[in-house]
């Protein structure tokens, strides 16, 4: 890596992403505060998810203007909460042509399975960029929430915190305070190889709109995090799922959509779309719900983008009372003995337990 080149670029970027620069952009481009949170009716919650077009930014103001336009569109449709995609916090990096190039190198190395090069780039990120980028991400979204007077789910960002690289998500309240912080819990093999560390706790926030949890990336592909969230009282889960390069509705149904069917939750799924270098990101942003809560379509989809290649802000009203589903006679029994056995199996992780090996039973 050309250390000197990147260090100079980091210095230049730090001037551009200064907190006072962010404040200046918001001052020069004021937002109209929303009145939608003045009165909240749990049977008429207004949610918005962003299907965000990836685009090169030439300046910080361009990036902030893009975010403001999306929030304004949601605001005009009466939204009370707006959800942004995973890794949205890394976008300011692309303001610098040097780091745009470096990011492309990173993805190329990832594709060619050159893990060492990826780790080297990430190590530079941890050392020189993480704090700078995080401060820009946090300040921008806090101001976005404060100026729009809405709940803003700020997708996620990468953060080097206490010696650990983590993917962290934030939900900002209408006063601009972070009301929920969540680290990604389930990592892919690649993420583990890159040295990203998983979180170990699931946080919930009691917002004016209901109890909210965040399940980033693959967290919504496993039933455990959604079940924990549901058992702790969550009603809405924000699922900034990983950018994908293949549009497959069946594959998408294995994630947040299925968690809604299992646990009676509303799930918001924001997405990135568009081309970047030779990568094409697609996938449709959506709001999912249990079958029974989608009363007209009965397919578990409250709303979903029709296109997977253009920007859109999806908006829908949801009724939290619909989550009080009628008892499913097929799936509502309990078995304390079995629960104990399962709890023992989970408690024994990660050591494989001998009694968990398959065995042939004796004749009876």
């Amino acid at each position, binding site marked *: 890596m050309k250390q000197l080149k990147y260090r100079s670029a980091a210095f230049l970027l730090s001037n551009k992403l200064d907190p006072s620069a962010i404040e200046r952009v918001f001052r020069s481009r004021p937002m109209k505060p929303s009145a939608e949170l003045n009165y909240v009716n749990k049977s008429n919650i207004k949610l918005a998810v962003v299907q965000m077009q990836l685009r090169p930014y030439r300046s910080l103001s361009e990036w902030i203007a893009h975010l403001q336009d999306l929030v304004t569109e949601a605001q005009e449709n009466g939204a009370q909460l707006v959800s942004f995609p995973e890794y949205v916090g890394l976008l300011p990096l692309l303001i610098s042509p040097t780091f745009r190039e470096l990011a492309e190198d990173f993805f190329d190395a990832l594709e060619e399975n050159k893990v060492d090069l990826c780790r080297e780039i990430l190590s530079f990120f941890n050392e020189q960029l993480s704090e700078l980028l995080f401060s820009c991400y946090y300040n921008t979204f806090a101001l976005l929430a404060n100026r729009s007077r809405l709940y803003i789910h700020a997708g996620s960002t990468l953060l080097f915190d206490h010696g650990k690289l983590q993917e962290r998500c934030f939900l900002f309240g209408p006063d601009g305070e972070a009301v929920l912080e969540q680290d990604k819990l389930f*990592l892919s093999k690649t993420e583990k190889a890159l040295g990203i560390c998983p979180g170990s706790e699931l946080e919930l926030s009691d917002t004016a709109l209901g109890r909210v949890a965040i399940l980033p990336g693959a967290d919504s592909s496993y*039933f455990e995090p959604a079940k924990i969230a549901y058992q702790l009282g969550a009603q809405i889960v924000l699922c900034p799922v990983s950018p994908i390069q293949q549009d497959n509705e069946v594959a998408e149904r294995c994630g947040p959509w299925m968690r809604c069917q299992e646990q009676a939750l509303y799930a918001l799924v924001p997405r990135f779309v568009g081309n970047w270098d030779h990568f094409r990101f697609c996938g449709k942003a959506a709001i999912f719900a249990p079958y029974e809560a989608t009363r007209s379509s009965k397919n578990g989809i409250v709303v979903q983008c029709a296109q997977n290649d253009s920007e859109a802000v999806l908006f829908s009203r949801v009724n939290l009372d619909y989550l009080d589903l009628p008892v499913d006679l097929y799936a509502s029994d309990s078995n304390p003995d079995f629960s104990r056995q399962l709890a023992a199996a989970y408690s024994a992780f990660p050591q494989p337990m001998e009694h968990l090996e398959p*065995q042939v039973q004796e004749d009876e």
Partner: protein
Amino acid sequence: MARTVVCVTEAFQKPKTLSDLVIFSDPRPQIPAGDLSPYMKYCSMYAKEHKVWLVPHRFVVDNKLYLCLFDPNGSVVAHQGSLHRHLSSQSKMDTDHSVHVIQTPVGNLFLCVDTDIYYPEVLRLAKLKGADLVISSQYINAYDFKPKRITTGIWNAAQQQGLYVVGCSNAFSAVAAPWELTPDGTGFLVQPEFTQHLFCKLYFNKLERSAMGGKLAEQLNPELCKRYAAIISQR
């Protein structure tokens, strides 16, 4: 064990040639108690005659709903009681206590009895115990049959655990597999249809290719699972 040929058929009908594992499809909720003894005897003879592994219809013993497995010698080598009940039978039936995964030449089998297929926790434990093939035999009331019964049942089990699930019920027969392994990407090797006949080849080495295939324990978050073990396990 690289491949298993599964055949779902009406009780005691001749299985398709090359079948390794036969599952009897029956429209009744279970074998009536009075018929159980001769039924099991005929099952034993059937397995022996056709040299197949056999999962016959559900039956009740001591107020527990069971599935069992015959080997090609006609012996019962395993049984699994239901761990959860349909709420309408909660007062009349008892439940089993543990998940048994059986290592056989036709796969590491988990016999999923009736409504257990709707509990991802049951399938998770089966997967952690090494299951790669689930035989789900269930009864669905006609007025309750809707897409949810398939998607939250056998389809979800196959996608969530990364294994094959043969579904056999009075309402449909189907084979679900991780979507990456199905030619049309739907997550079904054999689409659900109102039929009592089905024939399918399952290649176990392909399971590694799916996102949830392989050793699942390595993919889960150990610290999170330990911390919330009680919450995840409760209903």
